[in-house]
C-alpha cells in the first residue's frame, strides 16, 4: 500500500444533538485524515455515532464543532463528487437496474449514459438484469445496484454506511470481495462504516476503532496484509484479535 496524499481532513469534529429535554453528545474531538485512494473502515458498535460521523463528512449534517475539508475545501453540503451508499436499500423501486445505475448521469448525453451504465452493469455482474425492477432482485443484487449507481458518476470519494449489514453472511463475503475488486480497479477513496470486526480487517487499509458514546477515536490500526488477504494467516489473526481486544476494552463486552 502506497500512502497517497491527504484527501479528507477531519479536524476537532464534535457533534451534539439537542432535544427539548436533553443534549446528547455523539462525537467528540475527532481528528482523522483519509488518504487518497485509501479504504478506511470506521469500526464501532451500533449507536456509537459512527454513522453520524459519516453523515457529517458527507455534508448531510452540520457538525457542532470542528470541520471537514476535502482537497482543502470546507464541506458544507453533499456533493456529487462524493457519493453516499445507504445503510438501508436506497435503490429507487420505480426504476429498473439500468435506470438506477444511470440515475446520477443526467448531465451526460444519452449515448454516453448508455455506455457508462453498460460498463457498470457488467462491473457488478448484473448483465441480463438491466431491465429488471428492484423488487425482482435479491438483497445482494440490490446492493450491487446501489454500489454501481455510486461508482457510475465517477466520484472521488465513496461513503458506505454498513452497506452489507442486511445481507446473509455468504452474500456479505461475496460483496466484500466484489467491493475490493471494484475499488482496486477504480482507485477511489472509500470511507466504510461497519460494526463487523472481520469485515473491517478484511477490507481496510486502516481501521479506526471508535469508543462508546460520545465517540472518540480510540486507536487506528494499519492492516499491513496485502490483498487478497489470507484470513487464516498469523498476521491477519493477530490484527483481528488486537482489534477485538480493543473493542472489548472500549465497550466492556
Amino acid at each position, binding site marked *: 500500500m502506497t500512502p497517497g496524499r491527504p484527501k479528507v481532513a477531519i479536524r476537532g469534529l464534535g457533534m451534539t444533538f439537542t432535544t427539548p429535554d436533553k443534549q446528547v453528545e455523539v462525537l467528540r474531538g475527532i481528528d482523522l485524515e483519509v488518504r487518497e485512494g485509501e479504504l478506511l473502515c470506521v469500526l464501532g458498535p451500533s449507536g456509537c455515532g459512527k454513522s453520524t460521523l459519516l453523515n457529517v463528512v*458527507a455534508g448531510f449534517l452540520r457538525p457542532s464543532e470542528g470541520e471537514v475539508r476535502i482537497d482543502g475545501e470546507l464541506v458544507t453540503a453533499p456533493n456529487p463528487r462524493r457519493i*453516499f451508499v445507504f445503510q438501508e436499500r*436506497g435503490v*429507487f*423501486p420505480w426504476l429498473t437496474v439500468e435506470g438506477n445505475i444511470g*440515475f*446520477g448521469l443526467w448531465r451526460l448525453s444519452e449515448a454516453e449514459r448508455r455506455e457508462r451504465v453498460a460498463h457498470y452493469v457488467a462491473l457488478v455482474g448484473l448483465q441480463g438484469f438491466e431491465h429488471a425492477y428492484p*423488487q425482482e432482485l435479491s438483497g445482494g443484487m440490490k446492493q450491487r445496484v446501489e454500489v454501481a449507481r455510486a461508482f457510475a458518476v465517477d466520484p472521488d470519494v465513496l461513503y458506505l454506511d454498513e452497506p452489507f449489514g442486511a445481507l446473509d453472511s455468504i452474500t456479505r463475503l461475496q460483496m466484500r470481495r466484489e467491493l475490493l475488486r471494484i475499488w482496486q480497479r477504480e482507485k477511489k477513496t472509500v470511507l466504510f462504516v461497519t460494526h463487523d470486526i472481520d469485515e473491517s480487517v478484511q477490507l481496510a487499509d486502516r481501521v479506526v476503532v471508535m469508543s462508546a458514546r460520545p465517540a472518540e477515536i480510540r486507536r487506528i490500526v494499519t492492516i499491513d496484509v496485502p490483498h487478497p488477504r489470507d484470513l487464516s494467516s498469523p498476521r491477519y489473526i493477530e490484527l483481528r484479535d488486537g482489534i477485538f481486544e480493543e473493542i472489548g476494552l472500549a465497550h466492556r463486552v
Partner: protein
Amino acid sequence: MSDSAARSDDRLGATARVLLPVGTTILALLLWQLLVTLTRTQVFPLPAEVLRGIGELLRKGVLWSYVGDSLRRVAVGYAVAAVLGIALGVPLGRSATLERLVNPLIQVLRPISPLAWMPLAVIWFGISDLAPIFLIFLAAFFPVVVATANAVRTIPPMFFRAAQNFALPRGALLRRVLLPAIVPRVLTGLRVALGIAWMVVVAAEMLGVDSGLGYLILDSRNAGKRYDLVVAGMLMIGVIGLLLDIGMRRLERLPAVRWGFQE
C-alpha cells in the same frame, strides 16, 4: 396474513378463478327470482323483466347515450378533482406549515357529503351539467388530496438524500423522485375517489339534468313507476362501477408502480 391469502388465491386454477364469480352471479339471480316470486311483490321486478327493460332502453336508443352522459360528467368532475387534488396534496405533504394552515379546513369539509351541497350547487350552477359535475368533483377531490399528502409525507428521506447527493435540480427532483415515489399510493387514492365519484353520479343527476343513469332511475319512477327500468339503471351503474375498478386495478400492475402494492 396477506401472504397466506395470496397463496390460497394462487392455488385456484384459472378456470376456478372465472367460474367462482360466475357461480355467485347465477346464485344471486336465482335468489332474486325466488324472493320476488315468493313475496309476490308488485314493486320489485323479476330478472327477466329487467332484461326486457334494458332491451327497451336499447331500442329507444337512450341506454348508451345515458351511460355516455353519466361517464362524461364523472370524467370531467373526476379529472378536475384528480389534477387539483394532486396539485394541492404535493405541497401539503411537503410543508408542515401549509398543512397546519390548510388541514383544518380540509378536515371540516371532508365529512360533509357532497349531497349536502345540492341546494347550493343548484343556486350556483342552475339547471346545467355544471351542478352534477361540481358534486362529483367534491366527492373525488378530498380522497385524492389526503392520499397524495400522505404519500408525499411517507417518502423515505433516503430517496431525497440520494437525489441531493447526485445534485439533482429542483424540477428534476419533483419529476424523477417525488412523483414516481408517490404514484402507488396516489393511485390507490384515485381508485377510491373514482368509486365514490361514480357512486355520487346518481344523486348528482337528480339535479334537474335530463339525461344520465341517475336521471333514468328518477324519471322511470316518476313517469309511470317503471321499476324494471329503475333496477336496470341500478344494474348498469353497478356493472360500470365494477369495470372502472377493474381498469384502475390494472394500472396497479404497471411495472414502475407494482413495487408499491407488494408487502
